[in-house]
């Protein structure tokens, strides 16, 4: 990473850290939700972009993490322990689902994850101990003790910091994993699994591991959700929820590590802007269509194109650069296709 972008990230983090001091509660609640979505989408992107596995059942881990945290928080455990446990439970579940689904590939894999996630959804939906269809209300995080300093995190402005810290750390870990040798193996499997396997790599084991890691962080993101909203319902596991990370990642830009972040912010903004129009689905549909048809590299792709346009308009060799610019767009598209 370049020095300038590290600097930029630090400024950004500082801004987010201080945000609750300047904005109202509704806004910091919204920010919290965005953070959770960012982690949810990043965990999805970890397998989608790095390992080329498009799961359509990612909400299962999100939801199971959320339920685990709802139960554990109510039992009085401290939030960080709860997050870890929820992650571990989601990890185990996703290893199982991964083991079953990874017998197939491509769209079969997607449909298998979708259907297994539906099974998880229906099981939770019909478990009276978990509140059935009504879910579990009244989830309030216990105060945490930081070096003798008691922090009441039951209020969202305070709980914000738990979310902030967890998401930043998780994304950092995901970043490292993506660029580690594990990430390289996963990419190589995505590129050509026969070749990877003939290099002596047990392809399936790695895929399951990657699926498990994605499940872990998906679970953590869900676990952050339930104390924030105070209630958890089976809808958290529904298939539309599984489509969410895919939508976010594609809106943001699938090829960029920052895609989920940009995507989550854009998505939440669109959602808030259109919810009271009474036709939010139509707007969302049109916007998605526009992105898919016109901006396959998402908002980040648009930004990059815009920046490179600015650059070229300042440079002298104009005639040639227009040509190049077309190339950038085209190349971008094909890169998007390739990398999936």
């Amino acid at each position, binding site marked *: 990473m370049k020095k300038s972008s590290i600097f930029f990230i630090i400024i950004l983090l500082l801004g987010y850290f201080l945000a609750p001091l300047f904005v109202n509660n509704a806004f910091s609640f919204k920010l919290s939700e965005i953070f959770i979505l960012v982690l949810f989408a990043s965990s999805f992107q970890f397998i989608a972009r790095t390992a080329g596995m498009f799961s359509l059942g990612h909400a299962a881990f999100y939801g199971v993490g959320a339920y685990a945290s709802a139960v554990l928080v109510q039992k009085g455990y401290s939030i960080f322990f709860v997050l870890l446990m929820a992650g571990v439970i989601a990890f185990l579940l996703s290893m199982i689902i991964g083991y079953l689904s990874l017998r197939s590939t491509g769209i079969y894999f997607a449909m298998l994850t979708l259907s297994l996630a539906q099974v998880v959804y229906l099981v939770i939906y019909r478990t009276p101990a978990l509140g059935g269809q009504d879910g579990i209300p009244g989830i309030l995080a216990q105060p945490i003790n930081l070096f003798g300093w008691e922090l009441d995190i039951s209020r969202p402005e305070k709980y914000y910091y738990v979310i902030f810290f967890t998401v930043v750390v998780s994304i950092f870990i995901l970043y490292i994993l993506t660029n580690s040798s594990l990430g390289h193996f996963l990419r190589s499997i995505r590129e050509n699994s026969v070749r990877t396997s003939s290099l002596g790599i047990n392809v399936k084991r790695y895929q399951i591991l990657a699926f498990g890691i994605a499940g872990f962080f998906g679970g953590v993101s869900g676990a952050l959700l339930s104390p924030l909203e105070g209630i958890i319902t089976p809808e958290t596991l529904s298939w539309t929820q599984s489509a969410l990370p895919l939508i976010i990642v594609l809106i943001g830009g699938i090829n960029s590590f920052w895609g989920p972040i940009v995507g989550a912010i854009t998505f939440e903004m669109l959602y808030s802007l259109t919810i009271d129009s009474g036709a939010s689905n139509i707007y969302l549909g049109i916007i998605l269509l526009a992105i898919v048809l016109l901006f396959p590299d998402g908002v980040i792709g648009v930004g990059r194109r815009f920046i490179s346009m600015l650059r070229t308009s300042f440079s002298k060799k104009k005639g040639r650069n227009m040509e*190049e610019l077309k*190339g950038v767009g*085209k*190349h971008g598209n*094909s890169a998007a296709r390739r990398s999936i």
Partner: protein
Amino acid sequence: MLRIEKLNSYYGTSHVLHNLSIMIKEGQGVALIGRNGAGKSSTMKSIMGLMPRVDGDITFAENPINKEKTHKRVRMGIGYVPEDRRIYKDLTVEENITIAANAIKKVRKPLELNEVWENFPLLKDLRKRKGSELSGGEQQILSIARSVVGRPKLILLDEPTEGIAPIIVQNLKEVIKNMIDQMEVAVLLAEQNIKFTIDLTDYVYVIDNGQIVYSGSSEEFKNREDLHHKFLGVSS
């Protein structure tokens, strides 16, 4: 019959064919010789309209075709045997051939099935086998048969001998010769195998780095070992 002038082709940003000009007369066998990556396949794809971007003129039977869709070109009488064969793995040998026949049926009368078996006796026994159950050589022959069934005026053959046993290569040679001589089909043959090519064709284009670097009659080229060496790296 086919005339290519100043053809430039691109894959995205990479410019692979530069000002290429080629001419093929009716019923003539023409060779396109060049080493790996020289641009043989790209030339054929350009003729078929399968390249992402092509500039220049291509006329076939006096009609400009560079704006036509691929299927239109086929219906005008161009057949194509790609280097990777691309037979239908799930369909039987017979079905593979009937599809090709049906596709141009409205335009021209295709060959009857038994005419196909006559020309490609090897396929007759494999008639009911699925494409996936054929070996590489069998697939190659099927692929050629499939393009011939529509009685094209011109066939583009991309490296038909690649990965084929010597004995089948002999067979293949006769099949192609037969096409040119008896069926009066013009053939553009992309090859690296000079021996195989020269006997089948009477004119040769040598392509290197996307440019035509030599053209002349096959007889002449046959004896120009210096050229073989220069453009194809044959040392003998």
